[in-house]
């Protein structure tokens, strides 16, 4: 910073000089415009209103919506950039700086530095988590919070990752969203998205031992507001039994002799099914313990009240020579469970399209068009780390006389993949462990920091750690310090006249 400018200049002549340079130079006019207090007020006001609105959006929807619309929205980022320009320009308008500007300049540059740190952090760093088990394998990958589509290109068999957030994807059968398959002229079309995909059974033709008589059954309860789709087949490799929430047992067998005998002491209700030889109906027996409560025949579209609360059975399909296969599909039962995903097809430049298939998060699906096959997967991006981390021990001490945790203590072992050097770390609440650690790494943020994030009260061999790699840490830290020091200087340290 320059010294006091020209100490002999009076405030009046300084104001006159500033007015004069604006009059003479368009550049100064722009600088004064960009650094104007009015623009600062507009920025402060709009940012305050926007983020306040976002918190209500978050409370009414969820944090994803608030992020997509406001915090991570391009317009908001752009607005923050304008704020940076305003903060920088306003310091230029005070040129030549005087001693009284010290606090003012430190504060405004501190905010800019903090925001630069944030940009560096979000571009070069990442946040993620890793779940470890004391009896599990060391982990070398971190699960980030970024959803990605993974495409295996048929040209080079490489896996390509492309960010894709299905929640905020606007797409339809009429106007699908297209993604290129790298190295080919093929494209992947996404024509529908769902937040609630779950494995749904259906019957597929099968021959030989795999093909038996298959049935698709729908169980529904008005009281539980739930519908359950179950597929059973007598063919090899298909399920022949189904455990109904642990409360009842469902069995299908090709003949009565193959059905289990029912224990008279086990009061759990059961339903046994035997397909008729024509492959169009089923013989059923409902019972409890050793006694049969009802029996008869069922055809497609028949309804049967089961006597298990208000559960009813609907026979939706009976087919010979079929096997049960499960593929992801939107859960239409109304229950808000399942995983997100999308329905995609493969298309070529000739305009031909493959059969669209659902791709659920965590799954891989092959799309086939003519002779071309492209495997696509969907899920959270995994980031490799240059070392492995293993959970040696996990303890949850409790508050005296209660089951309330008083701390979480995870002992972990880091192992450098290249050198094989090992290092142990203890992660407690408020006391993270870091790798490679050390003062320099901690100060600069070129460091992987592991903090306790989640635990499973039912399984104390498992813990989830939050992972942070933030190369923007140093500018953030210096910026933060500058803001506080700057404000204190501005308010409380007066330069001697």
């Amino acid at each position, binding site marked *: 910073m320059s010294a006091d400018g020209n100490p002999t200049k009076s405030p009046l002549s300084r104001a006159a000089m500033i007015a004069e340079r604006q009059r003479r130079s368009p550049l100064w006019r722009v600088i004064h415009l960009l650094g104007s207090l009015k623009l600062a007020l507009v920025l402060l006001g709009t940012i305050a209103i926007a983020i306040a609105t976002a*918190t209500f959006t978050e409370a009414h929807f969820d944090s994803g919506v608030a992020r997509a619309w406001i915090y991570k929205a391009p317009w908001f980022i752009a607005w923050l950039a304008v704020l940076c320009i305003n903060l920088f320009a306003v310091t230029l308008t005070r040129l030549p700086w005087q001693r009284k500007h010290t606090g003012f300049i430190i504060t405004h540059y501190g905010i800019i530095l903090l925001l630069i740190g944030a940009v560096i952090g979000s571009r070069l760093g990442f946040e993620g988590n890793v779940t470890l088990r004391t009896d599990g394998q060391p982990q070398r990958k971190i699960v980030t919070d970024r959803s990605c589509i993974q495409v295996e290109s048929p040209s080079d068999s490489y896996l390509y990752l492309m960010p894709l957030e299905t929640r905020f994807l606007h797409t339809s059968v009429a106007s699908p969203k297209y993604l290129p398959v790298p190295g080919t002229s093929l494209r992947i079309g996404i024509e529908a998205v769902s937040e609630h995909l779950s494995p749904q059974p259906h019957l597929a033709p099968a021959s030989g031992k795999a093909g038996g008589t298959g049935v698709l059954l729908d169980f529904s309860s008005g009281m539980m507001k739930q519908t359950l789709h179950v597929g059973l087949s007598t063919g090899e490799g298909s399920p022949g039994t189904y455990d109904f929430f642990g409360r009842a047992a469902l069995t299908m067998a090709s003949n009565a002799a193959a059905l289990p005998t029912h224990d008279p002491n086990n009061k759990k209700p059961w339903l046994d099914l035997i397909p008729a030889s024509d492959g169009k109906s089923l013989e059923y027996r409902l019972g409890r313990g050793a006694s049969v409560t009802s029996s008869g025949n069922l055809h497609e579209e028949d309804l049967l009240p089961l006597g298990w609360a208000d559960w009813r059975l609907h026979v939706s399909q009976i087919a010979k020579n079929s096997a049960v296969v499960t593929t992801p599909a939107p859960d239409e039962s109304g229950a808000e469970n399942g995983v997100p995903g999308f329905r995609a097809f493969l298309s070529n430049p000739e305009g031909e399209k493959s059969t669209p298939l659902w791709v659920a998060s965590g799954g891989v699906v092959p799309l086939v068009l003519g002779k071309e096959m492209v495997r696509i997967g969907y899920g959270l991006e995994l980031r490799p780390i240059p070392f492995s981390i293993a959970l040696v021990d996990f303890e949850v001490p409790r508050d*005296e006389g209660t089951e309330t945790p008083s701390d979480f203590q995870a002992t972990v072992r880091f192992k450098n993949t290249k050198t094989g050097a090992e290092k142990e770390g203890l992660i407690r609440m408020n006391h993270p462990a870091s790798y490679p650690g050390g003062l320099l790494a901690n100060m600069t943020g070129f460091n992987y920091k592991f903090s306790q994030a989640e635990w499973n009260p039912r399984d104390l061999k498992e813990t989830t750690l939050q992972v942070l790699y933030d190369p923007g840490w140093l500018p953030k830290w210096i910026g933060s310090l500058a803001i506080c020091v700057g404000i204190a200087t501005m308010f409380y340290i007066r330069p001697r006249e």
Partner: protein
Amino acid sequence: MKPSSQIPLLVALLSLNLIPIAAALAQVSPKSLESLVIQEGGRKKPYLVFTEETLRSLSGKTALNMDGQKQDAMTVITGFWMSPDDSWKAKQLILVSNLPLRKHLSLEPARKLYSWNELTSNDALSKEITATAEIRRRDPRAKLVGLQKEASDVGMRMGLFESLLKGDDFKIIAPLSGSDWLTTAQLDPTEGKDIIDSVHSMRSAWTHLDPSRFDEAATSLLGLQKQVGGLPSDWKISLEVVYQKAHPFRWAWILYAAAGIVLLLSRNSWERRGYQLAWVLAGSGFLIQAAGLLSRVLIAGRPPVTNMYESVIWVAFGTILFALIFETIYRAGSFLLGAVPVAVASLILADSQPVILDHSIHPLTPVLRDNFWLSTHVLSITLSYAAFALSLGVAHVALAQIIAGRKPTAILYTYLYKTLQVGVLLLTTGTILGGVWANYSWGRFWDWDPKETWALTALLGYLFLLHGRISGLWGGFGLAVGSVIAFMSVLMAWYGVNFVLGAGLHSYGFGTGGFPLVATFVGCELLFVAIAFLKKQRLGSA
């Protein structure tokens, strides 16, 4: 009933061993038990504190009117311990505080306390409680809302009643190994014979209305408890008993209020002496409040800002602290006059709403167990709230003068600006420290968590106010109006995020209730500003 006819009945009852509880309660005082150490809620505390906290959880009060007599918490809870019989099930002890729930359960709209028998026979309630238990079974972290939350609270109180009646909560003996203390029922009959005998003889003295024998047995129990060991140090227990009885924050607000009244009333020749008296009164209140807070710090072993109750007390303390500092420098009177209503209102609120603002000292959730960060981040944030509360008070002084038809002096607005500066510096520092703590503990610096976001919103609001003043867009009056309106964002960051939004990572501070109160406050403040605005327009045009 005439006295003469009472005696034979009493004798008859004695022989049947069936004393009416109220009669026994009236005769034997459990005062000798107040320093008995009991383990409850994750810590060891004096029996006196345990009984008051327990009755407050059960009934929402620390004293009850039972059978026509006012009974304190010690008497009621000791009654459960000493004579756990079915007569308790008919007593109206269990709080059903929520009016919509009472209506839903077809209970009397005007009555808040119900007996165990009344509640267990209420089918609608058992249906609600079963439903909430089902939700919790499916997802232990599920957030209950509305009637379900209220019903679940009643269910918890019923659970507490049951465990009191069973004697499960009276854990008074340190175990040989482990950390779970034992009730007398869990003691080995031979090894714990002396202790069991003492409690037995306390019970017998209690039911036979023999105060001296009760005190004797209680003293022996206290001695035996010491022999077993594992107790916190004597001074800690004594301090907590004194703290519990002294109600320091009540005395503090009474003194602050007196200081405010003196300031308001002293005029002309009395002005100087009045100011000095107000100083003495506010200073004494401040010292008493400081002593109360210090006791809490010593008892809990952490800074006193870990729940809504503590933060309300702390903000009141900070407001007076800043006012006294400014008064020392400027001797203006208006800082104190502005601070007093804020501090008095906060302390009365904290004292009178125990169901919303829990007085009890609980062990902290693990993430908060770090005195360094608690005393830097949380203290600076709450002190910024205090500074803004002071600016709210000073702004009120200015706006009240306008409403009264007087023009506030320019220096008053300068004072207001100075209080805002303190707040801005502390809120900035506190918010950034929060980021540093979050980066350290949660593994990220900033993630738009609602608490973070509202702290930033409030900060931006105040920066807007100060920048507007610098640019000359508004003058002193605008600053005063802005100080009142911007304080609403502080309320949102402080109370709203935890109690209204109920989302985000700062979930350890969440609670329910108080919304009508806060909404009324906000409404009154806006009305006050509107009146001042109209008056100012009229003054300006005149």
